């Protein structure tokens, strides 16, 4: 064992960092770029891609607002409008919101728990490529005028073979399969990373709240995403090989679709929201200079939200007609979700009250989040009530409600989180001035756009209509919403400009520019490929605030091989030294084989059989060890 190089008294400082960099760096150039398994590179890639789809989804929103700005507008046709609102919802939910939350976790979680890479890093690379190919399938289809047009929740029988002939719905359903494979893979990686790679000392009871939020979210993804994958597989098979799952004439049931879809899609809302609460907790902690108030209550609120989110899906189906007991149960459970949400809101307010808030851009987004999300939460309690829901179902009131919840509850914290962690992502700070300008435009523009929609909805305007007659009393409100959308876009453009201007500047961000407490701030901005030169120890809830200028670390991990520390799941006691996989092109090649199989299956079921061969080759080559057996304990 003595010939194995390890960090410690004899190997530290610049020499150690140089040797670790050699071990953990990827190859230069394009080859290195496509073979990398570094969670930071994949995470950044995921963030860029997801944010690009947010911009594309935002362009679609702007087009819709342009069409609806005045009555009887002929700017876009009904058919194109159907594609646009379907693409907007699908893009925002499947290609932006869920992936971007996972993306930030891919980048931040390994750093925050104090380890060198994510668990199953090749699966991580594979998931990115799979997500990318699914996203491209959808958007190339849209550009070729075969974009889906039956709404983002793709209700049967409208989406079935009888009412949606052609390939539009199939493209949607297969895009779902791509993104679900990717999403589930990342959720398993994050769960394993959080439970097995935490720094010594970081017991479950001391994990940062963002880590808790991602753990609960990942478990929710694992439990809910199979539902939409199953539903879309059933829809595809109804359309392509003549199964009868949703065909009432052959004893199938269109409502089966709604149950399977919403069993996924309601938890999905919390899958988007819980990571955002994690952002908020980290930002509140850093910018008030104190631990978040009532940590156990915060953790229990996260867990409770996760549980309750699986018992509310039928509230999307009140208008389908339910037994009376069903109405009562799902109303009660939907209203109950407000309780853990309120507990978190009160804890953040208490933290701000007790701390010394610094009104930087990330913190401003938190304030906007609290205000907006409370409004969205209250309109949610309103539509949880069946009589109100039956009045407001499928009107603009619902559009207003869920944009308050999703933009207020997730996008504002996301913009705050990007600003907060931007130095860790890029080594540069965003401009506070531009950041504040963008903040005010986005938040004011958001309210000007979406607040009037509560009223448009109560005045009876249905969702998903490509135009409306002039004498309905909706003209002024719609014009106001469209003007608000212009303001949001101005803010968005300033945010984007802020990012690109920052990226043009040289790197100079300090390791911990905001004075944060968690371990990601213990390493450089951006971190080196190996994240930490020595294995950090977490001494308490706020490791960097608990130590005075000296970070306790453990030594003894290998330097000439990629090695990570596995700790026990609950107490995070050091247990095993584990080899982290090397870069490889096989995840990309496997993802290409998978894409060929999925896309081929839109046209012939035989693609599943034929496509399985290259996919199997890809997987075998991926798993087959390429380096000689390790020098360390080998049997015999």
């Amino acid at each position, binding site marked *: 064992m003595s010939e194995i190089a390890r960090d410690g008294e004899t190997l530290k400082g610049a020499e150690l960092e140089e040797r670790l960099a050699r071990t953990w760096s990827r190859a230069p150039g394009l080859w290195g770029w496509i073979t990398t398994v570094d969670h930071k590179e994949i995470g950044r890639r995921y963030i860029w891609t997801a944010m690009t789809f947010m911009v594309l989804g935002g362009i679609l929103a702007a087009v819709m607002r342009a069409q609806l700005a005045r009555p009887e507008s002929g700017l876009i046709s009904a058919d194109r409008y159907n594609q646009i609102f379907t693409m907007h919802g699908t893009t925002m939910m499947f290609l932006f919101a869920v992936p971007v939350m996972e993306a930030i976790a891919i980048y931040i979680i390994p750093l925050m728990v104090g380890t060198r890479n994510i668990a199953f890093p090749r699966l991580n690379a594979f998931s990115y490529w799979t997500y990318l190919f699914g996203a491209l399938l959808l958007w190339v289809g849209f550009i070729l005028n075969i974009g889906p047009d039956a709404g983002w929740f793709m209700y049967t029988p409208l989406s079935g073979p009888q009412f949606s002939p052609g390939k539009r719905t199939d493209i949607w359903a297969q895009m779902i399969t791509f993104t679900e494979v990717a999403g589930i893979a990342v959720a398993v990686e994050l*769960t394993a990373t959080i439970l*097995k790679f935490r720094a010594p000392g970081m017991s479950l009871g001391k994990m940062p709240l963002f880590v808790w939020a991602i753990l609960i979210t990942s478990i929710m993804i694992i439990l809910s995403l199979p539902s939409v994958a199953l539903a879309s597989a059933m829809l595809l*098979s109804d359309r392509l090989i003549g*199964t009868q799952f949703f065909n009432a004439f052959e004893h199938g049931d269109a409502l089966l679709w709604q149950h399977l879809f919403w069993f996924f899609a309601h938890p999905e809302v919390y899958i988007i929201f819980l990571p955002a609460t994690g952002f908020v907790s980290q930002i509140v902690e850093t910018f008030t200079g104190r631990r978040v108030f009532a940590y156990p209550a915060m953790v229990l609120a996260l867990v409770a939200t996760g549980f309750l989110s699986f018992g509310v899906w039928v509230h999307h189906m009140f208008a389908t007609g339910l037994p009376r007991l069903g109405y009562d149960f799902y109303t009660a459970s939907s209203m109950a979700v407000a309780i853990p949400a309120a507990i978190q809101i009160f804890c953040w307010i208490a933290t701000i009250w007790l701390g010394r808030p610094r009104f930087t851009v990330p913190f401003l987004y938190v304030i906007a989040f609290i205000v907006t999300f409370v409004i969205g939460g209250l309109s949610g309690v309103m539509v949880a009530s069946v009589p109100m829901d039956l009045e407001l179902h499928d009107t603009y009131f619902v559009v207003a409600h869920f944009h308050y919840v999703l933009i207020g509850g997730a996008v504002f914290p996301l913009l705050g989180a990007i600003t907060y962690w931007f130095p860790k992502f890029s080594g540069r700070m965003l401009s506070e001035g531009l950041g504040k300008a963008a903040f005010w435009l986005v938040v004011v523009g958001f309210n000007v756009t979406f607040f009037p929609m509560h009223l448009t909805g109560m005045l009876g305007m249905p969702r998903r209509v490509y135009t409306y007659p002039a004498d309905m009393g909706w003209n002024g409100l719609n014009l106001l919403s469209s003007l608000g959308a212009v303001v949001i876009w101005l803010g968005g453009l300033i945010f984007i400009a802020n990012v690109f201007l920052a990226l043009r500047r040289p790197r100079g961000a300090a390791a911990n520019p905001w004075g944060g407490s968690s371990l990601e701030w213990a390493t*450089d901005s951006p971190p080196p490929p190996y994240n930490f030169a020595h294995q950090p120890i977490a001494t308490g809830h706020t490791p960097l605030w608990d130590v005075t200028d000296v970070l306790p670390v453990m030594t003894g991990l290998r330097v000439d091989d990629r090695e990570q520390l596995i700790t026990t799941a609950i107490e995070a006691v050091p247990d095993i030294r584990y080899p982290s996989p090397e870069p490889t092109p096989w995840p990309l090649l496997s993802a290409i084989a998978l894409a060929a199989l999925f896309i081929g299956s839109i046209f012939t079921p035989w693609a599943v059989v034929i496509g399985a061969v290259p996919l199997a080759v890809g997987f075998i080559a991926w798993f087959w060890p390429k380096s000689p057996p390790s020098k360390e304990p080998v049997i015999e």
Partner: protein
Amino acid sequence: MSLPVRFDGDLADLPTHGFGPRSLTWWGIVGFMVVEGMFFALLFAAYFFILDKEQTWPPQPYAPPGLLAGTVFTMLIVLTEIPNAVIKRAAERFDLRTVRKGLVVMSLLPLPLFVLRGFEFASLNVLWTDNAYGSIQWALLLTHTIHLITDWGDTAVLTALMFTEHGKEANRFVDTSENSAYWRFVWGSWLIVYLLIYWVPRWLT
């Protein structure tokens, strides 16, 4: 590191492998078992959702599936647990000879299972296009078959790997142990699928 550090313990003496929940592989396997378990659970829910709408199960005039192939399949797949358990125990004491022999057996045993599975499809007495009952019966059987094929492929690759130099690495024994755990999931989930496909239609006719 940006902060000055203080050395507080050394990790060099830690082992490089561990079985069960200590290993990362176990967590990955369990993660994917939960995903696939959810997939099955939702299929079962869909089965009962469709069943609930029918007057009889199977709907008139269909007959329940023939029992023979499915029952023989069930007996055989449960019996595979014997070599499977032997392999798992052998892996956990690093007994390479037994692991190799056992894995060869476990790579060959699914072959008669595949033949029986073919007869099972032929004895469903309904096509997937006939009605929703037929669709869900085929979905259950097909989903389990995909499950079976993937784990068989996985076992075959592992078998080949264990005959190379890499087979002597401790973490490959962990992989072998977890592969056996996964096989338990494959045959365990089948028992429920078997009841739903073959017996629920008999109990409710």
